[in-house]
């Protein structure tokens, strides 16, 4: 029973994290939510008897994907709604 409950809670966490990742305005938290998706997903894979996929998802999904997203956010903007006040692109067209 505990296992079933565990599975369902994980499913709910996955969906909640996905919705959070899409709705959250602060992109850093959105990216961390995708990291959580990867964590839960790799546990899911493990439960579904796919240890190889679980390890791959853990190594690539959690660590590498998250870090490249964070690098991107560092190089761009962190806030989703941020409209730039810098209208350079209108002049040097």
């Amino acid at each position: 029973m505990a296992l079933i409950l565990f599975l369902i809670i994980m499913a709910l966490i996955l969906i909640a994290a996905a919705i959070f990742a899409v709705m959250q305005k602060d992109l850093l938290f959105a990216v961390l939510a995708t990291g959580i998706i990867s964590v839960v997903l790799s546990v899911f894979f493990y439960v579904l008897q796919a240890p190889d996929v679980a390890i791959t998802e853990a190594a690539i999904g959690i660590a590498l994907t998250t870090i490249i997203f964070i690098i991107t956010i560092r190089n761009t903007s962190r806030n989703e709604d941020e409209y730039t006040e810098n209208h350079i692109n209108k002049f040097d067209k």
Partner: protein
Amino acid sequence: MKRYIIFLFIAVLGWTLAQTFRAIPFGADRRGNLDQPDRVAAFYLKESPETLQTANSITAIVVNFRGFDTLGEVTVLFLAATGLASILYRKEEDDETEERITLISSSLVRTGAKILFPLILLLGIYVFIHGHLTPGGGFQGGAIIATGFLLMLITYKRFDTNHNLMVWLESLAGLAFVATGLYGLFTYGSFLQNTHSVGTLNDLISGGLIPLIYIFIGIKVGTELTNILDILLKIKPGKQS
């Protein structure tokens, strides 16, 4: 207006997927007949321990049965690194000092990273050497190695990945993968074909060429991923062109 069309599209897609997957029962046996395989799943489960003597049947599929896919996949990663370099980082053009951003710089973390780094590398190497026996393999090991390098890259500003060595390792691993395939082509008449002496199941030296190829894949994937991270970390924030 466009918004509602998209909502409609998403709803229709979701409904279609739900309906379709109701016709594909979860947990049902779709492998086919295991003794006389009529579906590829059954065939792979039968041949992987018998003919290939490879304990991890996923490794057998990834490296041997569908090894050509894997060659293509390694190429995809290689091309992504190449494309990334062409889009973001051009040494000759930008004349940038090769200075990386560091994300963390507490001395505790640095010491920790220094200790963890060789351990992570060892773990990665262990994972791809045992790819044919236990879960894991070239991709997983490669990704773990890249994680180790990542740790060093983001904590030490002056940590050098020795670009030359990386280029050599990456190229040679890729060439070795293709060369192993060509060995099969010239010896047995089929690209990537495994040798006939495959050892016994669950030995460290078993599966013929499978562990060897997986090691090449591990090195290649590890260096490629490190390469991608290295390029991304070298972007100067705020530099405008």
